[in-house]
Each structure stands twice: as structure tokens, then as C-alpha cells.
């Protein structure tokens, strides 16, 4: 049974203000093939960039492109559904202008 999580905010819009150099060729974070609902919902709660999403039908999606490289998902689910967590390739990823 997955949690009924309500949110009113569109974080993607906020992330669009950040500066990124997105690595289109390789993902620096990878999930296992069939992540469990329970573990995935944890990541929905803790990822500050809202990269872990579920649509109305409950379908899961994850996009590393807006990653803030904090490592929270690695700490929360590094032993369960996060298969790989590496730093992005050289010069890639987020670049904070304020921080």
C-alpha cells in the first residue's frame, strides 16, 4: 500500500532557474529495475529536487537531470533501490551561483 502524498508545488519550475550542465550520455544515479513502492515513496518524501515522482495511476518516474547532488537518496535507499550513485562526469551537473 503506497502513501497518498499530496503536493501543490511544481519544483521543476524552480529547478529551471538553476544552472546545470546536463550529461545527456550517462546517468550518474540508477535505480534497480523494479523498485518497491515503499522505498520509492521514501525518495518522494526526501529528494529536495522532486526527481522521484508518481503520476495519478501510480506509475513511477525518475529523472536525474535536475539533480542537486546532495546524496540524500543514496543515504535513504542506497542499500535498497538505488543501484548506482556517482558524481556526475567532469564539469557536469549542477553549478550553484549562490549556494
Amino acid at each position, binding site marked *: 500500500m503506497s502513501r497518498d*502524498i*499530496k*503536493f*501543490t*508545488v511544481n*519544483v521543476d519550475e*524552480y*529547478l529551471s*532557474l*538553476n544552472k546545470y550542465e546536463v550529461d545527456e550520455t550517462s546517468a550518474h544515479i540508477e535505480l534497480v529495475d523494479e523498485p518497491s513502492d515503499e522505498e520509492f515513496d*521514501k*525518495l*518522494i*518524501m*526526501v*529528494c*529536495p*529536487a*522532486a526527481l522521484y515522482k508518481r503520476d495519478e495511476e501510480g506509475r513511477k518516474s525518475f529523472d536525474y537531470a535536475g539533480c*542537486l*547532488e*546532495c*546524496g*540524500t537518496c*543514496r*543515504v*535513504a535507499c*542506497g542499500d535498497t533501490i538505488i543501484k548506482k*550513485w*556517482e*558524481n556526475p562526469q*567532469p*564539469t557536469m*551537473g*549542477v*553549478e*550553484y*551561483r*549562490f*549556494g
Partner: protein
Amino acid sequence: MADFDAIVVGSGCAGAVAAYELAKAGKSVLVVERGNFAGAKNMTGGRIYGHCLRAVFPDNYDEIPFERKVSHERISLMSPDSNFTIDFASDALLKDGQESYTVLRSTFDQWLAEQAEDAGAEYIYGIAVEELLKDENGKVTGVSAGGDEITADVVVLCDGANSLLAEQAVGAPKPSAAQMAVGVKEVFELPAEEIEKRFQCNPGEGAAWLFAGDCTHGTFGGGIIYTNKESISIGIVAGIEATAEKATVPVYQMLEDLKNRPEVAPVLKGAKLVEHSGHMVPEGGITTMPDLIADGVLIAGDNATMCVNLGYTVRGMDYAVAAGQMAGQAAAKALDAGDTSKAGLQCYVDALENSFVLKDLRQFKNVPNFMEHFDRMFCGYPEMIRDMMNGMFVVDGTPVPPMKKTMMPIVKGVGFMNLFKDVRGAMKAL
């Protein structure tokens, strides 16, 4: 013969200062920073206490690009329909050696890196260290970065809260979700005079504002607001385990709700969002601190859990600067003695033990556990305070009962024993 006397991994508060000390001592130093400039991957709430920087930069302290001097300490207890705020100002907060400043890491870290470079440290930017090199006895002998192997007699590892290398360096396991908090922060631009008006501050001065209670909707964590020169930082710091297991909304929704609170929205009105950032905070304290040295390597800063969240203030950057300074000095001393083995680097641990860094962290060793189980601070006390304040301030024309009659049932609601236990617990932990 190694390529460098020392390699420093990461140019944040600890790394840049360690590199500065090593270069100042005449050592050849290479800093490998994964951001395209120092600070590019770093984030703070945040505020730094000045004393640590006075110790490192006595001659050019006045040139440090601080944002604002913190003249107002604010703490709020927030219930769903009320907010109780303490605003403290004091001459003592502004005195040299006791003062603190808000900072933005992109600017601040670049200044620190400049000091290291000016002292003679070499920098490689935009490449992360993938691996530490070790000899057949397990002594760290350098780093592998971007496919190149670079060697050094000693490595100072300052790769931050999300350290991917501390395990290789000193055997530190990946931190558990209970030991770490996640921070989400947004920066809003606003003209300087407007900030000073809204926070009732003199030019160049500002506020540090912490929130507990409904800002996380009752789970372990809190809200933060810091005033910068021409922007306001607002964020949420929430325990990862507590949020993953018990929160009712995601962390970014907590931040959105905090921004929309009637007590907060007016200070952000008309301000322009310019950045949305995230970072982890090591909140486990000294009981989760890994070994700080091994053969050929020292660690300093967030990767060594040098951080405390006391509820009324959060510290980490001053510990990192001081630890970076001691790491750089100890590494230089070990290089001079020709012994960068674990025994040769013991002087780093000794220096930390004799300093406020480990003394404070020892003093606060029970705080993380106390805070994590201080449920009533996040849900219970904010409501109790609300009811007491309502009892005093709400006037509706009905005859006023004696104060005791109003207050006693409210305190009873939480329970005298609970209140007593929590006060005693807080006193013991802090």
C-alpha cells in the same frame, strides 16, 4: 618521489583552509575540486561564526565576502494556526570574535580558494576524485581523478557531507538515514534597503531565524531564514529517516508551505526566486564520527560529521574551517618530520582534541539523540505556547478568569511530567 607534497580533495571550508596552511608552510599542494569553481557544488543555510576565520586570516579578515553580520537571532515555534517568535538582539552578538555572518557559498568559497591559490596552492577544477591510491600496505599515496593518477605524500580529504571517499580513506561506512538531515533552500533576491526594513536591521546587518513545529508539519526538522546582502535564504532541514518514514509531505512541499505562512510570506513579497538548492547535513554528532586519520590521509569537515544542530543554532562551517587549519598544519608538520603514517598524523587528532572542535562535539554528544526524540518540540509545545499566548492576548469582552485557571489546563494538556522530563533532558544534552 611523489608528484606533490600534499593533495587536498575538495575546496570547501575545510579543504581550502587546509590547502592555504600547507602552501603557507612552503609545501607543494594540489587541490582537486569537482565543481567548475570552488563553491559550485556547495550550499549552506547559512551562517558562519567569525572567530575561526580570524584565526586563519588575521590580516585580511576584513576582505572576506560575508553577506550580513547577524544582529538578530530569531526563534519561532510554529503551530498550524499560530507562530511564537523570540527576537534577540545584543551588543555581545556584534563584538569582534563573537560575531557571525551570513554567507553564500559560491562567493565565499571562491574567496577561500583564492587565498590558497595566492599562497601557492595549485588547483584542478571540474574533476571529481574517483578513487584514492594506496600502496601495498594500504597507505594512501595519491588520488585517481579523470583517469589520471596523481601521487602525494599526504592526502587531506575534505569531500563534504556526501563523501564517496571516506570509506576508502578511513573505513567510514555510508552514514545511516538517522544520522543525516536533508536541507532544501531557496534564494530570493530583494534590494538591500527592503531587507533592512523587513527585518528591522541596520545596513549591513541581518537576521538568523530558525523555526520548529508546523514548518515540517510536526516531524523532526525545522525551518531557516537567513538574510544576505541582497537576497534572503529560506529553507527546511529535516531528518532523512524521520521524513522518509513519517512525514506527511515531501521536504520541498514543507518549504513551499513555509513560504506561504502568513508570518513568512510578507518578508518574501515581491522577491524574485533565483536558485533552488539541496544539500545534506551530518547531524549524528561525535558518536558517529569516523577515524580522522589513517596512513597517508586525514579527513576534515562534514565528511567527519563535524557539525551540530542545537535547535537554536546550527554549526558546521566554523568547525570545518578550524579543522581544515589544524589538518593543514598537522600535515605540514608530518611532512617536515618525514612521517605521514597514521602515527605521524596523530598530531592532527591531538590538536582537534585540544580545541573547541572536539570539545564542543563531545559536549553535545547526546544532542542528536535528544533532538530526534524530542517529538513535543515539533508537535505539542508549539500548540501549548499558542494556547497560553491566546489566553493572554485574546480579548473578547467575556469576564477574564484568573491567569492560573487559564494556564494550568494548558500545561496539564502536555503533562507536567513531560514538561519536566523535556527540560531536564534538554539541560542534560546541552
